[in-house]
Structures are given as C-alpha cells and as structure tokens.
C-alpha cells in the first residue's frame, strides 16, 4: 500500500505543484490584497467600500457597487436561463441523432470556440449596430430597424452566444449516456411525451444541467468586455468594475471585489449542490 501511495504522490507531484503555484498562491494574493491598504497594513476598508460606497444616478443616491453587482447577476441569470432554454432541447436532439449527425453538430458547436473571443464580440457589434447586418435584413424584409446595440439585450445576446456551448456540452454528455429503454419504459407505464420529459429525462439529466448552469453562470457574472462593446459602456458590470480599478492601479479594491464575488459564487454553488443532491438519483430518501 505504502508503495503505491508513494507512487501516486510522485505521479501527482507536477499537478500538485501546478495547483499550488497557479491556483492557491494567486488566491492567497487576492485575499492578501483585499484585506490590506496601499501600505499593506491590514484593513477592512476595501470590503466595506464595496458594500457602502454610494453615488448619484439619475438624481438618486444608490449603492454603487451593490447596484453593479445586482446588474451583473441579473444579466448573468437571464443569459443562463436563455442558454438553458436553447441548449437543453439542442442537447436532447443531438443525443438522439445518428452518430454522424452528432459529430457534425458537435463540430458546429465547437467551431466558434476556436475563434478569439474579442473577434466574436466585434463580429456581434457589426451585426447588431443600428446600421448593421441584422437591421439591414430586418429593413429589407419590412420589419424596420431595431435598436439593439447599447441595450441590455445586446449584452445578453453576446453572453448567450459565447457561453451556449458550455451549457450544451455537459447536458449532451449526460443525455447521450441515457438508456433509451428508460424512455420506452416510461411511455409503456403511461407517460405521454411531456410526462417522459418531466419524470425521466429531466431528473436524469439534472447533473448535466447543474454543471452547464455552473459553467455559464460563473463566467457571465464576471464578464467584462462584452458589456463594454455591446452595451456601449452603459452597463457597467462587476467585471468591468474590477477591470477599471485594476487599470486605475487600485489593486487592493480590485482584489476586494474579486474576493467578494468569489465568496458569493462559492456560496451559490454550495447551495445549488445541496439542493440538487437531494433530487439527483433519489438521494435523501435512499438508505
């Protein structure tokens, strides 16, 4: 046993070292910066500033960063929900297709991910602009112009486009493994199409949905560039705020915001996991 234990440690050493150097150490730095001031003396000021700083927006006093955070969360949740609504049927359809078609669809979903994210965002700018491709098409077919660029919708469109694959792929991988006989059994036992979806497909694909939601929600909460380019800078998100503070060389407050965001996301993830553990594979009731 000790031999194999030693072996394991040797094999895992590079990964452990990697994790230490590039995950743990930076995290410690973030925490360290978050709780210190410019002269590296311990302080809660940065954290408090996030929760208490106010400013005037349209004649009203608001909590600046809480408002920004709320906006980020709102857009992230909307994007995640849209990704789910688009991605779930797509994943289901993919998993039930012939092997050939599955490969083609998989490639089509992956291809945009090979292109740089900045380029994708710029592409959306040209599509969504008032004089852009979308509006040309809409005008040509007689619907008229839509003002999209610079609205929250534009930001959501950008995020959904960028993050959709992260929703589709985990759900697809769970769906592809699902035994078709289970769906037949459900129909045999009296379920119509909706019943099969509700009572078998959905609960069995929950682990995939959970990781899809995680993989979309977290990057969209901390998104920054998309909001600047597609929102015309009108929708300052928490990611933009962090970037702004960083660029302004205010590293301590940037670290504090990052730290708070991280803690909030951790709590959200933990709650989500606890909730779904109860439902996935009959948890609670068993044993």
């Amino acid at each position, binding site marked *: 046993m000790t031999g194999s234990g030693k072996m394991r440690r040797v094999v895992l050493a590079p990964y452990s070292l990697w994790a230490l150097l590039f995950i743990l150490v930076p995290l410690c730095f973030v925490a360290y910066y978050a709780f210190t001031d410019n002269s590296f003396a311990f302080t809660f000021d940065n954290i408090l500033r996030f929760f208490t700083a106010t400013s005037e927006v349209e004649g009203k006093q608001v909590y600046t960063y809480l408002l920004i955070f709320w906006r980020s969360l709102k857009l992230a949740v909307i994007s995640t929900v849209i990704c789910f609504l688009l991605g779930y049927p797509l994943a289901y359809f993919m998993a039930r297709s012939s092997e050939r078609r599955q490969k083609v669809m998989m490639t089509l979903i992956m291809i945009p991910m090979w292109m740089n994210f900045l380029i994708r965002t710029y592409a959306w700018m040209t599509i969504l602009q008032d004089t852009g491709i979308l509006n040309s098409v809409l005008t040509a077919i007689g619907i008229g112009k839509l003002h999209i660029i610079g609205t929250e919708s534009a930001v959501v469109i950008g995020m959904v486009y960028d993050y959709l694959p992260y929703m589709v792929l985990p759900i697809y991988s769970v769906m592809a493994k699902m*035994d078709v*006989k*289970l769906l*037949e*059994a*459900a*129909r*045999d*036992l*009296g*379920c*119509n199409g909706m*019943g099969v979806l509700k*009572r*078998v497909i959905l*609960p*069995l694909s929950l682990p995939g949905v959970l990781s899809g939601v995680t993989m979309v929600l977290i990057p969209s909460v901390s998104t920054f560039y998309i909001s600047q380019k597609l929102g015309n800078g009108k929708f300052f998100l928490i990611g933009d705020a962090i970037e702004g503070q960083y660029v302004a060389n205010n590293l301590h407050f940037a670290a504090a915001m990052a730290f708070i965001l991280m803690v909030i996301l951790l709590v959200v993830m933990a709650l989500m996991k606890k909730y779904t553990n109860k439902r*996935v*594979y*009959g948890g609670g*009731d*068993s*044993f």
Partner: protein
Amino acid sequence: MCQEGRSPVFLQSERFGGTLMKKIVELKNISKSFDGETVLDNINLDIYDNEFLTLLGPSGCGKTTTLRIIGGFEHPDQGDVIFMGERINDMPPHKRNVNTVFQKYAMFPHLNVFENIAFPLRERRVPKKTIEEKVHEMLSMVMLNGFDHRRVTSLSGGQQQRVAIARALIGQPKVLLLDEPLGALDLKLRKDMQQELKKIQKATGITFIFVTHDQEEALTMSDTIVVMSQGRIQQIGTPQDIYNEPKNAFVADFIGESNILDGTMLKDLMVRFSGTTFQCVDKGFAPQEPVDVVVRPEDVDIVAQEKGMLRGVVTSVTFMGVHYEVIVDIGGFKWMIQTTDYVGEGEYIGLYIEPDAIHIMKKSEYSGLYGDYSSFSNELDELSDPGEESEDYE
C-alpha cells in the same frame, strides 16, 4: 368460460379444443422491414385471454419485433393490430392497456424501489394512500417486502427483475409483455423465476406474452408456444404439440433433440427411410411422397444387432447424469440416442423403433438442413439440457 356468441370477440378457439376463449390480441397479416430487410413476413396470430404465450425462436427471427409491435414501440408496415376487438395500430404505448418487462429491466435509477413500482400510479394521479397499499401488495407478491426505500442500483439482477415485474403489473394491464426477462440471470435463479412467473400469471389471470430463445424455458412455462424463424411463424401449439408433432425440420430441430431423416411415404401407416420400411401412425400423404422423418433420441431402443430394425456402430458415448447420449453411425447418418443402458464405443448395435415414435413431416424449405449429429459436440450445444427433457417428456 364466456357466454356464447355475445360479440365478435367471443370466438371459437381452435387451440383450446373447442372451449370458448376471448381473443385479446389479434395480429393480422403483419409485415415489417427495417432498411429494406424483412423482419416480419405476414404474421397472423390470435392471443387469448388468460394464456401464457411464448414467442420462441433464434435471434433475428422477429420475436422481439412482434412484441414491440404489440407494445406500440414499432408500427407494422402492413397489417392490423387488434386489441380487444379494436384496431390499435396508431395508438401510442401510454394509451395501451399493455405493459412490458424489458430485457435489462429498465429501472429508473433516480427513483427508489417504491417509486419505481409506484411510477404508473403516480402518472394516473391515484390517491397517495391507495398507491401505498398497492405498492406493498406488489412488493409482497414479488417477495421484496421491506425493500421500499432501497435504491434500484443496489439490487441484484434477480431483485431488479422482481421490481420490474411489480412495476409492470401494478397498473393491472390486460396483457404483460416480457422480452427475454430471464436472459441475464444465472441458471438456478432462472429456474426459480420461471416457476414464479408462471405462478404470478395464474394468480393474476393476466395474459403473458413471453419472448425467449430458450426452448426449455418455453416448454416448461407456456400454455401456447409460437415458434418463429426468419420473420415467419413456423408452428403454433401447446408445448406437447410442438414437441411431439413438429410441423417441419426447423421446429423439430429447434425444440429438443431430433434425428431428422429423408424418407418416402409408401402408403398410409408405412414409411421407408435408412433403407428400411417402418410401420408408423401417420397417414394422409400422397403415395411415394418424399417426407422428413423425425425420431426423438429418447424414443429409440438399443437392442442386439440381429434384433434391430437398423444396425450401426457406436461412435461416441457421453454420460449425462440421468442417461447416456450415444451417437450411432447408421449407413453414414449419425443418430443421437438417449439411453440408460450402457453401450461401449465401437460396439455394433441394433435399433428398435416403435411405430408411434416415428413422426412424419411434409418437406419444407428447412428439409436437409437439420437433424444429423455428425458434427455433434456437447460443448458447443450449451443450451440443450437433455437430462431434464427426457424426464419431462418420456
């Protein structure tokens, strides 16, 4: 059993010797092909209330497709599926009063034993208390009391099988479809489950349509056996009929062991094969009609050479427990004989065959394909279990 002539579904059954039985499922001229390959070729089958019917045949014979058509998972290209007098070709599975026990059970892994069994009742919004009562009733029927909260993934194959049966029966279907349900169980468990299934079928009075490739399973469990091959029904009958009066060489070979010989019907009650003329009990063939002759291995007596109707040399002897399996070369054709008397390899013996041990069949497309034991090997013939058969059918 039923009142006479009340409705078209109360029809005279040929199968039950004139007793009146209610037809529950009728397959009329069913044909089905997948990718241009014919899987079912004009299937006609009546299935009666309360019977245990087995679809028996080698893999690829169309038995599972037939079952899936009744369940509603496949649609026939041609022909009609009639359920209690009503055409149900286009009725989806969830509306059919038919449930299925799937080959690998298809348990819902996200639900425990109780919820798996309660599944169909929850769909029908049955009151909670009734569900609880019914599930417990089912659990005790399949002898899984106290298993309510177990995960299905923690159960053994046999236990999952029982849950699958309970789940399929709780909705009280008119017909239960079983798709090789015992295939994944070991021999001992399989035998126990055979008995139990038969018991459950009798107790519930539900029509069972059972699919298997195991001829022994079919013989021990069924009221009616439907032998299928190449998408066609070869023979329908009771286990005794199928065994004693096989219709063609395929059936004779597939069910039990058979020596199948090329013969000529000289006249009624007289047949010639292996260069000898025999008395038999079959008639109604044309004079000099070429026929297939079946002699079951357990119906042949070994006698001294000079007393034998046929003479040959023993080429192999295998001890099977209850009896010996002897291969005898008679004029180049190898016979299998099952006997409790020991004979030695290389010994010259005579064979004596009673007239009623000879069964005559019309020539068919299967003639000449089966029934010679020249390439016989026990190891390859893993499915046969002749010890049991000779006990049951001698």
